[in-house]
Structures are given as structure tokens and as C-alpha cells.
């Protein structure tokens, strides 16, 4: 495998990791606050549709992004209503959101655009186009560093850079701010937060909302940056892989980055069977690579690679008692 192939492989790793990373961080906020969110996938899907649809109609991708975030946020609030206010089962609520999104997006797409459940292809300002970082042209001819900068680091859409910037930001919020302290506490022991005189419900809604915003960006990235338009079921289970990555990352922001990059690499390899064949000498089915994130999550959960301890109060509605 030559250097350029490696750079190309890593480049598509970054592209494929971005939606996973955003969704993983979304799940991180929600689950760290004690609300399990299996509906990441549905939220991404809804956001993907609404951002593509509004971008197609208005021709402005930023309006599309806002619409995507709004759609995802609405589903987040629904999840919050079911699982925080009405203390329902968080898994069931999440599954319901996934089904709702899968059905509604296609239905509305058909009703609005009559293109078989798709949105029209997005062009120009209706898409997030690659950004060329400064000096990419000048550095490109340089050996080694040139392709690394021009191909791998430069030339992504703004959302990719936002996603990567979200990692240190998430870390900072979680571990350096009052909000982060309370958020982590409410996922571990809501009674401690409650007796300290802080609203458990308020904190959990805040977390669920942040989750909605990040999922919205992830969905918008799918339909307006990674691809040019919405197609049926385009989230393709990424929400679930993001959940797997979250467990893999032991609910920590920096680990989430590495986990989603690793899963992104599997995704990239899936599209380049020739590279694997060249590397290990045997042909590997692409589907096998697609299953790897799940296999690795099972291994992690079984405790082979250190312990993955979920937030202690995760999945359980908070009922005041002593």
C-alpha cells in the first residue's frame, strides 16, 4: 500500500467518522445525564431529511442545517417528555422515535417532492462544500507533509471541523464547568443532585437538548455534505454504531474520538477490499468489516478490554424517594 492510498483511506475514514463522532457525542451528553438514547439513528434520519429538504427548497444549506437541528431537537424533546417527565421506558421511547423517523421522512419526502421518497439532488449553496484550508496549494507539492495537509487535513466541509472541535469542547464542558459536574452527577446519582437543591429534571432536559442539536448536525452532514440529498433510510444504522462507539469509548469524549475514527476506518476499508487484500493477502468480505464495530462492542462489554461501566443511574427515571 503506497502512501497516497493510505492518505485516501484516512481521508474517507475522517468523512465516515464525522457523523459517528457527532452522534456519539450526542449520546454521550444524554447518557452521562442518565437518559439512554437508542433513538440517535432516528434523530439523525429526521435531521438528514429536513436539512436536505429545506436546503433544496431555499437553496441555502445553513437554513437546511437549522431545520435539521430543529427536527432532531423536536424528537429529543419527545424523548425527554416520555422518559423524563412521564418516566417511561427509555428504550421503548427511543425505538419508537426510530420508527417514527424512518416512516415520516419518506412519507413527507414523497408528499413534498414526488421523487420516490427522496429529495432533489443538492447543488451549489444547498450543500456544504469542501473547504480548502489556507496554503493547501503551496504545501501540496512538498513530500510527505504535502499530501497529508492538502488531502487529509484540508478539503473537508465545515461540519467535519465542527465535529472534531466538539471533542475538546465536550471534554471542557464535562470536566471543567459547573454544568458538566452536575450533568455527570445526575447520571450517576440523581438523588445527590436533588438533595443538593439542583433540578434533576432541568439538567436532564438540558442534556437531551444538547443531544438533539448534535444529532441534528450529524444528520445534516449525511444529506448535505457526505451526500447530496436525502434518500430513504440514509442513516443506515449509524446511530447504533455511534452507541457502540460510545460504549467502546467508555462514555468519555476523547475516547469517543478514537472509537469513532476506528469505526470510520472499518467503514473506509469496507469500500476498499483491494487494500485489505493487499495488506493481509486474503480476500475479506466487506460485510464482515461492517460487522466489526458490533463484534468489538461485544468484546468490550464482556470486559476483555478493561471495564466499561455505564453511568450508574442510566436508563432509570428519577423518582424522589429516600
Amino acid at each position, binding site marked *: 500500500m503506497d502512501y497516497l492510498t493510505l492518505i485516501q483511506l484516512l481521508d474517507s475514514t475522517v468523512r465516515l467518522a464525522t457523523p459517528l463522532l457527532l452522534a456519539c457525542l450526542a449520546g454521550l451528553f444524554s447518557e452521562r445525564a442518565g437518559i439512554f438514547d437508542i433513538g440517535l439513528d432516528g434523530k439523525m434520519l429526521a435531521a438528514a431529511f429536513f436539512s436536505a429538504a429545506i436546503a433544496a427548497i431555499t437553496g441555502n444549506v445553513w437554513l437546511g442545517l437549522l431545520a435539521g437541528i430543529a427536527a432532531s431537537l423536536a424528537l429529543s424533546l419527545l424523548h425527554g417528555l416520555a422518559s423524563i417527565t412521564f418516566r417511561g421506558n427509555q428504550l421503548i421511547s427511543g425505538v419508537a422515535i426510530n420508527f417514527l423517523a424512518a416512516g415520516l421522512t419518506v412519507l413527507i419526502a414523497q408528499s413534498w417532492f414526488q421523487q420516490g421518497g427522496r429529495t432533489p439532488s443538492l447543488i451549489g449553496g444547498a450543500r456544504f462544500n469542501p473547504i480548502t484550508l489556507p496554503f493547501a496549494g503551496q504545501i501540496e507539492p512538498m513530500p510527505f507533509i504535502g499530501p497529508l495537509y492538502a488531502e487529509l487535513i484540508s478539503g473537508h466541509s465545515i461540519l467535519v471541523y465542527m465535529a472534531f472541535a466538539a471533542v475538546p469542547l465536550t471534554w471542557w464542558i464535562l*470536566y*471543567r*464547568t*459547573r*454544568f*458538566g*459536574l*452536575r450533568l*455527570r*452527577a445526575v447520571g*450517576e*446519582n440523581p*438523588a*445527590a*443532585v*436533588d*438533595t*443538593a*437543591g*439542583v433540578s434533576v429534571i432541568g439538567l436532564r432536559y438540558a442534556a437531551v437538548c444538547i443531544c438533539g442539536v448534535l444529532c441534528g448536525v450529524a444528520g445534516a452532514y449525511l444529506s448535505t455534505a457526505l451526500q447530496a440529498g436525502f434518500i430513504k433510510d440514509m442513516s443506515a444504522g449509524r446511530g447504533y454504531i455511534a452507541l457502540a462507539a460510545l460504549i467502546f469509548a467508555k462514555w468519555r469524549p476523547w475516547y469517543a474520538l478514537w472509537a469513532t475514527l476506528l469505526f470510520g476506518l472499518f467503514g473506509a476499508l469496507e469500500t476498499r477490499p483491494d487494500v485489505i487484500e493487499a495488506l493481509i493477502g486474503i480476500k475479506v468480505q466487506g460485510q464482515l468489516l461492517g460487522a466489526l464495530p458490533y463484534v468489538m462492542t461485544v468484546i468490550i462489554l464482556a470486559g476483555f478490554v478493561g471495564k466499561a461501566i455505564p453511568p*450508574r443511574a442510566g436508563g432509570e427515571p428519577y423518582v*424522589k424517594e*429516600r
Partner: protein
Amino acid sequence: MTDTHEMERQATAAPAIELKGISKAFGPVQANKDISIRVMPGTIHGIIGENGAGKSTLMSILYGFYKADKGEIFISGRKTEIPDSQAAIAAGIGMVFQHFKLVENFTVLENIILGAEDGRLLKPSLAKARKSLLKLADDYGLRVDPDALIQDIGVGMQQRVEILKALYRQADILILDEPTGVLTPAEADQLFRILGRLKSEGKTIILITHKLREIMETTDTVSVMRRGEMTATVKTSETSPAELAELMVGRKVLLRVDKDVATPGEVILDIKGLRVVDDKGVERLRGIDLQVRAGEILGVAGVAGNGQSELLEVLGGYQTGTGSVRVNGQELDLTGKHSDGQSRRKHGIAHVPEDRQREGLIMDYHAWENTAFGYHKDPAYRSGMLMNNAAIKADTVEKMERFDVRPPNPKLAAKNFSGGNQQKIVLAREIERNPDLLLIGQPTRGVDIGAIEFIHQQIVALRDQGKAILLVSVELEEILALSDRVAVMFDGQVMGTRDASATDEKELGLMMAGITEAQSTPMEA
């Protein structure tokens, strides 16, 4: 001049806390009935009562967890509404719960500032808390490592963190709910030294407990609660453990159980040197020796929490212990490897657990399903590989009739029966299996009068069939009415065993307070 002096005197004389006519009901259960209480500043006030007497509910109202149906709260003479914990903290009330409200994987410092941070960023808050923590440590002798994780420190330390949390929030009134329940005696002594220090610094402390010794050793005044009511408030120096025990356990109209003199046969249950250490490392049973013979009822009396529950659990097979327990001469496994309800039943032991709703029944399941639990492998309940549900239902109907369960509907969920009828379902299941030894805990807790009589008759009838019965109850009167012999437990040990006919409430009350005859000279004021 004299006026301001007078006013100051008045101000200091205002009680730190005054509750007036507090009532609180949960559904049909009246947890607190018209409770009034005054606690003077700079004193330690004890609230003592059995489990379920309503102590914790009262304190939860004071800390804003529950809203009282009726009544008023005055803090330092001022009427104060406490709708939530925030308001309680603002009023200067700090609470140390029985189950600590700490985040296990946070450091001590993080737990202390949680909810009381100074700004949006943590760094300055942590720095400030570290400084005041050092000062509090000096002022009150409360030393902790601020950077230790809660999960790495012992329960005694964790409790100290809870106290520090309250002090960091500038609490003047500290409520401790059963603070020594999880502590070793040495840790408990240390806690009481700290409380003494806090008191001398002018803090007001409310100590909720069911342990008489703690009340006698630490408090200035004490209130006794029983069944949701405040039965008495006295100066600690003017009372005695025996009097408090009597006030706690109470005296009702004497129950009469018709029974003949027992004719005990051979030893069925033989316990020697039984010890139990709980998962917190606290020794709950400290070498128990007891025997129960065929055809007799041995009543185990004691204030709740002195090891009776652990005794039942280890005999019932779901608590591990060391020592020797023989039933019909056969050694029981106490290690937990081969001990469970199933193996105990094979030894001829039936168990009516203390907490029927948690251990005796599955509340959402039908009566007939509950009747089969534990005995579901009975051939009569099976047809081949499947359960013979029709047979179980028919059997349940029969049992319900014999035990007068109302309504006699086997398809009703356990939770829809009254407490007494739930108990009858459990009793029917266990007694009808003709055990050699019946373990029965709190047989009539939460049971109406009519059912109490019936349940007592069933227990006596089983004795008359020549079975051995180990009865645990915190109702002294029940113990005296039913038992042939009475053993009194105190602090994980048996204080002594008496023939029921040769003892009375007074003697047992003293033993329950941990006083043996040798010490039973009158306590001086």
C-alpha cells in the same frame, strides 16, 4: 438597653426548629399525625421509634422532600415554607441521609461543591472549597482527603463527607437519619465525638435512631414516635432506656391467645456460635446460641436492627454466616454455596419472611402464582414438563378457603389484597407444606386486628402439631402472647432467654435496652 437585652434573650430562646401540627398521609396510611416538636438551638435532640413509626417521613418534610398535608414549620422563630431541598438548605438545614447521597466516582471535593458551586467554572469553586474544607477540618476535627474518590473511602469517611457537605452550605441545623446503621462501633463513637464538637460550636442536631444507647449517650432531649404519632418528649437525663423502650414498643390492649402449655420434644433447630458479617463489613450477629424444640414457639424479641433480620436471613438461606446450625441433626450450609430457599425447604424449613412484599410475594403476580413459588417443582403442580396451572389454581382456592383469604379470588394480583390477606397467602403456602421448622418474621406487621387473631391461631395450631417455630417480632406484646420461651437480642447477641410465663414486659424491656440483671440497678438522672 434592657429592652435590647431582653430582645436578644428572646431571640436566642427561640427554638431552632419548631414544628406545629404536622400531618402527612400516603394514601390510606397516616405516616405523621399532628406532630409538634421544639428543638432548642445548640442542643442534640433525639427522635426514636420503630421502623415505620414515621421518623423519616417527618424529617423528609423538614428537608422539603415531601409536602405536609397540614402543619407549620418555624426556623429560629420564623415561619418558613420548605417546598424543596433548595429552600431547606437556604433555611440552614443540612441532612445526612441514611443512604448517602454521594456520587461514587467523584472526589470528596467535587461532592462537596455539587450544587453549591460559586460560578460557572469549576476551578475557582474547587480551590475555594479546598480552603474551607481545611478550615472545617480544623474547627470540627473532620479530617478527610479532598482528592479521594468516594468509592475508595470507607462508610465512616463517606458520612463525614455528608456532614461536611452540610457544613459547607453553612447549615446550623443538622439532621442525621440513622447515622450509625452502617458504622462499626468505633466509627460510631467517633461520629458522636464529632456531634459533641458541633454542638459545642452552637449547631443544633437532630438525631434519628432506633438505638436506645445512642439516645442515652448523646442527646439532651428525646421525642418518641410510634405509629405516626409523637408519644412523648422528655429530657434525656430524666428518662431511662427501659422507659423509652416501653414508649417505643407501646402498650395496647393485651392480646390473648388461647393455648395450652407446650410439650416440647426433641431439639429441631440447634444454633451454635452463629456469626454474620454484612457486605459493609459490620458484624450483625456476634455469636448466637439458640435452640428450638419440637412443639414450642421460641420468640425472639428486640428493638429492630439488633440482628433479628440477619438471623432469619441466614436461616432462610439468603445470607451467609459462620458457625453451626443444625436442623433435625443435619448441618445447614451457611457459606452461600449450597444455601438457598430450595435447599432449606429440603431440610424441612418453611419461612414467612419479615418483609412479605419484598421477600414473600411478587406483588404483580396472581395469588395462585404466588402460592406456587418455591414449591413449583412439586409433582402435584406439574404435568410432564409443563406447569399444571389448573391444579395450582384449585389448590390455591382450597388454601384461600382454609385460611379465610378475602376476596377468595386466585386470579387477583398479590398487591390488590390487604396486608393481612397477603400475609395469609404466604402463611398458607408455607404452613400447608408441613414443615418441621417454621421461621416467621413480624407475622402481623401491618395486619388488621381480625387477621392478627387468625394468624396467631394458625401459628399455635402448628406448634400443637409438634412443629418447632422461631418467631421474630418487634411487638413485645405479640412475643409474650405467642411464645413459650423468649430470647432477647441486643446488638447482635442474645441477652438472655426466659420462659414466657416467668417474665414480663418490664424485664424484657430492660434486656432489649441492653441491660442485664447485673446492671439493672435504677439509672440515675
